[in-house]
């Protein structure tokens, strides 16, 4: 089968041709001038560049804090970001609204209009495209910190054009993440092609001396994603980004809740990604890790939610994450107020600082978890490379179709949907059903025996009901 996509740098011509189409998607696209945008980046203070902030964090072994946040209007977004800045964030977010994420700019415009009219945000994010470069620059100019665009979208090309031209220096995401989490019918090769465009755009800025950081998502569906599969996803994305000229990658990971497993994942992530990047000729790409605090269902009680947030801070600290993306005590209910969002930041800051020089000691258990994640991710990645004859883009499309890579709870109809995750006795995410995942037999046996232990302890069968129980667990106050 023809995968329809290859891991090859888009030629200047192809890129230029596609650009013309992309910029025509909405009137604000017309005014984007890449040369002018590069000049603007050069004129901005280095302290407003994400990649530079990440470089110094990596150097000092610090963890940067980035919250999430987006509202409909420019003024609202400025107020929000200033509040988050004051609360002690290191990097500022701009989460896109879900219409923009789906290129439904007309609906976004309607949501923006209604928001202005009613004086409250009816959109769940900031419609960058509708505000255009000028609106976004007002935001950039109103704060002191580096800015990250957070699309969460299969096709965010125009949004990326606007955000990067406005002075954002990170446009988070990646094609596999957003294929698995944010699509229903779309084929993976299309999402890959769209993100290759975005990576190529970032690579263009890089080639002009403007460092762009490529944060990945990696949390995918936020719900019981086995760490090794997330690692396979972000490694493939990193390779594809590198091919398009990206040089600074933040490997994304979503906290699962079991500390040993999470710390193991955060430690093994850069090791495995490094190995594959080096092998494929991208040794120059710098890697860090970005940990998303628990992405699944939150408890609605705010004090309990603060506990979950604190646990995320602890995990990021012990896992030596380069960035931590924070949640708020409003998570279970709705988009947080500035105050609630700030609480998540300050709780996280307190713990990051308190744990700054503490170690999660090396242990056999940790080494074992690291080995398992490494072996599983490598098995999947090797198969992907096989499938693509060394081309990860082609390989991953075939791997998805073959169910060699699939993600629990993906809404995509192209996702196999056969694997079943469940927690073991210590809360680590394991698999009950492996579908076609190419895990080694002894690893499969390890998963099964671990889940059985838990079933035995709780006196419950290891079946779909266990999975459902685990989906609710943290929101119901346990793991």
């Amino acid at each position: 089968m023809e995968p329809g996509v290859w891991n090859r740098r888009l030629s200047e011509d192809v890129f230029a041709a596609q650009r013309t189409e992309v910029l025509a998607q909405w009137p604000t696209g017309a005014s984007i001038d890449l040369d002018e945008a590069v000049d603007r980046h050069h004129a901005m203070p280095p302290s407003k560049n994400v990649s530079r902030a990440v470089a110094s964090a990596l150097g000092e072994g610090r963890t940067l804090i980035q919250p999430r946040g987006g509202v409909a209007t420019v003024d609202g977004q400025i107020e929000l970001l200033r509040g988050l800045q004051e609360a002690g964030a290191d990097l500022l977010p701009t989460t896109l609204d879900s219409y923009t994420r789906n290129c439904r700019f007309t609906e976004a415009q309607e949501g923006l209009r209604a928001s202005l009219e009613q004086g409250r945000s009816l959109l769940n994010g900031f419609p960058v495209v509708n505000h255009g470069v000028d609106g976004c620059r007002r935001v950039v100019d109103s704060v002191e910190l580096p800015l990250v665009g957070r699309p969460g979208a299969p096709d965010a090309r125009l949004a990326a054009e606007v955000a990067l031209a406005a002075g954002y220096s990170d446009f988070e995401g990646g094609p596999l993440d957003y294929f698995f989490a944010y699509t229903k019918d779309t084929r993976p090769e299309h999402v890959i092609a769209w993100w290759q465009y975005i990576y190529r755009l970032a690579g263009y800025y890089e080639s002009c001396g403007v460092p762009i950081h490529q944060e990945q998502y990696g949390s995918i569906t936020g719900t019981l994603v086995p760490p090794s599969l997330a690692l396979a996803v972000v490694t493939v994305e990193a390779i594809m980004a590198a091919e398009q000229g990206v040089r600074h990658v933040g490997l994304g990971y979503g906290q699962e809740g079991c500390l040993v497993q999470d710390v193991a994942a955060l430690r093994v992530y850069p090791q495995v990604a490094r190995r594959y990047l080096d092998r494929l000729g991208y040794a120059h790409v710098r890697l860090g890790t970005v940990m998303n605090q628990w992405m699944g269902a939150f408890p609605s009680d705010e004090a309990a939610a603060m506990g979950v947030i604190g646990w995320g801070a602890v995990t990021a600290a012990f896992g030596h994450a380069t960035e931590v993306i924070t949640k708020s005590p409003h998570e279970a209910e709705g988009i947080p107020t500035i105050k609630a969002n700030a609480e998540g930041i300050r709780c996280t800051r307190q713990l990051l600082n308190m744990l700054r020089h503490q170690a999660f000691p090396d242990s056999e258990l940790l080494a074992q978890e690291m080995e398992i994640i490494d072996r599983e991710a490598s098995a999947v990645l090797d198969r992907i490379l096989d499938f693509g004859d060394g081309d990860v883009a082609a390989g991953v499309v075939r791997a998805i179709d073959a169910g060699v890579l699939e993600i629990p709870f993906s809404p995509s109809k192209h996702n196999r949907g056969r694997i079943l995750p469940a927690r073991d006795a210590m809360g680590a995410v394991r698999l009950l059903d492996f579908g076609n995942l190419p895990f080694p037999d002894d690893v499969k046996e390890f998963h099964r025996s671990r889940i059985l232990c838990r079933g035995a302890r709780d006196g419950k069968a290891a079946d779909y009901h266990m999975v459902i129980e685990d989906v609710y667990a943290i929101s119901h106050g346990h793991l």
Partner: protein
Amino acid sequence: MATSRPYTLILGVIGADVHVIGITILAHALREAGFNVVNLGIMVSQEEFIAAAIEVDADALLVSSLYGHGEIDAEGLRDHCREAGIGDILMYLGGNLVVGKHDFKEVESKFRDMGFDRVFPPGTLPDDVLAWLNSDLASRAARVEETP
């Protein structure tokens, strides 16, 4: 309890919303309880909901919205049902319906006014949904029998 002829329910997430976990679990629980469930998945438009309901002669429409655009996405659904000739269909709505954390009473009355028969807050468990469905469908069935 579902009766001898199982009730048919349409389930889906409206708008551009991708939150699939809730309806996945709901669909599972409703099927286990004997309902005939048509799960349209995520990103379902009003037209798709209505077309599906007509196609299978559904007894109820279960609309999920998590991402905050519920206000915009669900606007006019009851009218469109009426226009399509299924104006009476039992209609539930659940999830995180508006942007931000709000007193649920206000949210509920907003969507009741929009024509939803019941509105469910974040955190609703399948068992609650089941209980309401059984009672609402039973009392509708009783009403139908009374007026032959």
